């Protein structure tokens, strides 16, 4: 064999081994199904956690803002503050384990629901602080004008203050949701078959980490880039009403 042939042979074997590696990781034994299932669970957990985070986050933010501006809801404010401090002061992985191994210890509950609950409750603390900063950013005169027109505190919040607050905090909220999407990978630790766990399972069968990890990273990247694109579009839509 001359040197040329040896060279081509090497390249050929290289591509062949890549092809084999890809085949083993993705196609053989329908292993891509792990990835699809993992992706599905990641999206489900992130989506419902975001919804829980927004709902509880808004409630906490309104309670704390009401206390800050009117001095009402003293106890609610105390409870909310403690909640936010505990959630922000401990790792999400620990919270996940506490919910799964301690709170739901003797209850037979779907592990995906545990994930949704843990990440939702975690996100709520961060979202509440973001929304609170948004509420503070709206000029005091807006509340006064709304009240002076005869609207109740709740109606002013809903139609005047919150829409402006959300517009102001959209970038920060988008950031929080991107973080949340990536953080769901911690769910692998308690055995949720989400995207990161899926790649781990495949790799543990082939002993080849390259494709499972790279493909998974790519999927996360596409999702987060899509999310930030979405936030940008929303920002642009709302910016026409800037004062």
């Amino acid at each position, binding site marked *: 064999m001359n040197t040329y042939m040896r060279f081509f042979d090497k390249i050929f074997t290289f591509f062949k081994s890549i092809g084999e590696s890809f085949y083993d990781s993705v196609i053989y034994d329908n292993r891509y199904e792990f990835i699809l299932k993992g992706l599905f669970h990641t999206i489900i957990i992130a989506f419902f956690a975001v919804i829980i985070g927004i709902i509880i986050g808004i409630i906490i933010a309104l309670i704390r803002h009401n206390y800050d501006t009117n001095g009402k809801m003293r106890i609610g404010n105390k409870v909310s503050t403690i909640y936010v401090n505990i959630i922000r002061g401990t790792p999400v992985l620990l919270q996940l384990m506490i919910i799964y191994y301690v709170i739901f210890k003797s209850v037979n509950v779907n592990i995906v629901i545990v994930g949704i609950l843990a990440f939702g409750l975690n996100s709520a603390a961060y979202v509440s602080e973001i929304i609170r900063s948004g509420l503070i950013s709206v000029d005091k005169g807006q509340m006064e004008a709304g009240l*002076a027109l005869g609207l*109740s505190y709740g109606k002013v919040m809903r139609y005047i203050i919150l829409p402006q607050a959300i517009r102001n905090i959209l970038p920060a909220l988008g950031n929080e949701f991107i973080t949340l999407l990536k953080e769901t990978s911690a769910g692998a630790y308690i055995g949720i078959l989400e995207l990161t766990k899926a790649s781990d399972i495949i790799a543990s069968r082939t002993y080849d980490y390259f494709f499972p990890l790279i493909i998974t990273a790519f999927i996360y990247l596409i999702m987060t880039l899509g999310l930030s694109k979405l936030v940008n579009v929303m920002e642009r839509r709302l910016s026409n009403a800037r004062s």
Partner: protein
Amino acid sequence: MLEVKNLKKCFGNNVVLKDINFKVNKGDIISIVGPSGSGKSTLLRCINMIEKPSGGNIIFEEKSLMDKNTNLSLIREKIGMVFQQFNLFPHLTVLDNITLAPIKLKLMSEDIAKKKAIELLKTIDLKDKADEYPNSLSGGQKQRVAIIRTLIMEPDIILFDEPTSALDPEMVGEVLELIKKVADTGKTMIIVSHEMNFVKKIANRILFLDEGKIMFDGKTKDFFNSDNERIKEFLSKINK
């Protein structure tokens, strides 16, 4: 229709209003004047409870606003307020700014509110701005829209809190003209203003506030011809 009784207001240890008493009758156009820091705006803001009084009482149409059982929102529907900083809602179009309250309070259907808002906008020549956002309006236009927003509620009384203080000089005229127009319809008003020439022309009664107390309560003519030293000093400073 409106009575302020022994009204007190303090911010911490700082006493802004001490024992304010006066009555407003239907059709009155009252101007509150006085040196800056005398509590004019605070007094006005206490009347619709945007600022919570520290003591005393405010009675509107025989209802006490300090009574915990009084529905303040229902009363505020009848007490309009125009702010120094306009306080239009920047996320809503001009039309939505005007129709938000009547629609959300279910006082009018959406169609009727819109029709009425357009009619009102026509009277100030801003009909073609109906679908624009407030940030594209000039200061004078913003304040005139804010006045329209109050008028659509058909309030019994309108409070004006230094309506021209935040405006460029060339826009003061158009706003004062609109206020005059509203006054000519017989609407009851209380105006806090530094525009003495305007006050002289429009108000039939003056409240002169100094150091948190009412120093003068009487006819406009009597105020401008007063012998009181404090009033004379105030007027001479303003006219400089």
